[in-house]
């Protein structure tokens, strides 16, 4: 499957990935509108961690043996059969936070409404995830695992 790889030596900490993740998952998908008028913003599925000049963007690793899927008590957290991505079906999520408890990279977060979790969905349906497409320094790249 395709995975998002973060190159921390190239990450410049601009946080455009977070911004564009939010836009991509907004209702309008228009940046100004998403930020200025849409009320129900998501929690970005990508998070930039920063310490001094070291920084990197991290999102769900879509693990092969995903602890979040194993821990999910409702079956909401599941693997998409075609892409291999680990996705959360928010209609089935009840917000028990088991996934947050077990994710070793801390890539699952409570959603903005604090009812269900929010995580990277690899921008299913897009050729390239928004964070990758909008990273100005190619610090986040999409690579085929087999390569």
């Amino acid at each position, binding site marked *: 499957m395709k995975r998002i790889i973060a190159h921390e*030596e190239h990450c410049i900490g601009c946080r455009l990935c977070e911004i564009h993740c939010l836009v991509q998952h907004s209702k309008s998908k228009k940046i100004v509108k998403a930020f200025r008028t849409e009320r129900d913003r998501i929690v970005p599925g990508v998070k930039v*961690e920063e310490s001094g000049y070291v920084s990197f963007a991290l999102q769900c690793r879509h693990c092969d043996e995903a602890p979040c899927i194993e821990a999910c*008590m409702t079956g909401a957290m599941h693997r998409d059969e075609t892409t291999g991505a680990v996705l959360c079906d928010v*209609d089935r999520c009840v917000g028990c936070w088991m996934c947050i408890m077990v994710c070793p990279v801390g890539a699952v977060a409570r959603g903005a409404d604090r009812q269900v979790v929010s995580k990277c969905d690899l921008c299913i349906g897009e050729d390239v995830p928004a964070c990758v497409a909008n990273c100005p320094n190619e610090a986040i790249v999409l690579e085929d695992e087999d390569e």
Partner: protein
Amino acid sequence: MSDKRPFLIIGNSAAAVGTVAGIRKRDRDTPITLIAREAEHTYSRPLISYLLAGKVDEERMLYRGRDFYEKNGVDAVLGVEVTRIDAESRTVETDDGRTFPFGKLLIATGGAPVVPEDLPGTDARGVFTFTTWEDARRIKSHIETTDVKQAVVVGGGLIGLKAVEALVELGIRTTVVELADRILSATFDLTASEVALDFLKGKGVEVHCRTTVSEVRGHEGRLAGVLLRDGTELPCELLIFAIGVVPDTRLARGAGIACGRGIVTDDGMQTSIEGIYAAGDVVETRDLLTGARRPMPILPNAYRQGFIAGANMVGGKLTSRGGLSMNAVDLCGLPTISVGITSPEGEEYEILSSLDDESGSYRKLVLRDNRIVGAIFVGRIDRAGIFTGLIREKVDVSGFKELLLSQDFGLISLPNEYRKHVVSGMGIEV
């Protein structure tokens, strides 16, 4: 497979589903028979409180999709109880008189709720345990048919408090009766319990600690109230016993399988009889942190053990590294997570904690030999999994101890080696 007899699974919950996944990862062909006492499609046991509260409907109770059995080649025999395992002939008998052969067997019979044996009056209408879908249905129907104004929940543990949450949601005045000195005593320390307690009280919940029910009072066969040991009388129309579950080892013992408090298995989840595996709430799990074997009835463990058992049933060589006790509970909107040893006693433990009264958020880390062995998060639970990972991997945190409780603690605070490890070389280049 040389043995074409089917795999047989007794049980239908997380451990059973994990076993199916473990088998099917490597073997798409050998038939699987799954026998379960409950007639339901595999469902999520923890969701019964949400069902009761009306937050999820029956369809959303399902743990896996309707096509789960079909897609995985599972012959599901539901609503049928296994009455005997014949380890010699490799068959099981069921209460409908049938006999099923197996090549390899998985026992995932789970736990049974505890009800105080010598307590008078528990046969009154309105007294329930709370572990199955059926329990939830019955309570729901009781509430619908009876004018339930007040309820008492015995047990301030996880199940009890989730029941409380549901009842609060339904507008029922609820009182918790807990024998210990605090709620969630198994996983919370005093501070966390107090934070949670304050929160619950804010929702109108009454809590009685250090006491228990000494008598259940009925009226014309209907529940009328309870009398506590300390003399308090609590009138109620609904009483739920949630004082714990014990491994349901009856079948295993009958088959001569070694059992302690639960079924004893090796790290590959095989029981004392070759070809018979066990997983989930029914087994004794080796505690990752203490090494002691004890029942550890939590869902991620059950799934993982099932997966390991399934993989080994088709010739895999997976071993469990041991279970880590942990729980994530959202109590009426207050998120909490607890992992590992949370209320240690002894000089070898170091405690790091921070409490923010204003936001009601509490974080506590328990360290031993510069390694985190326990953690509690109340309120601000973001990225708690990173700590779970550190506990599980027994990472030496002496190099970044002062960062552990900082607001922006993250992977970046961790040593490069560990960072590389957690992202399995697939992510961050270090």
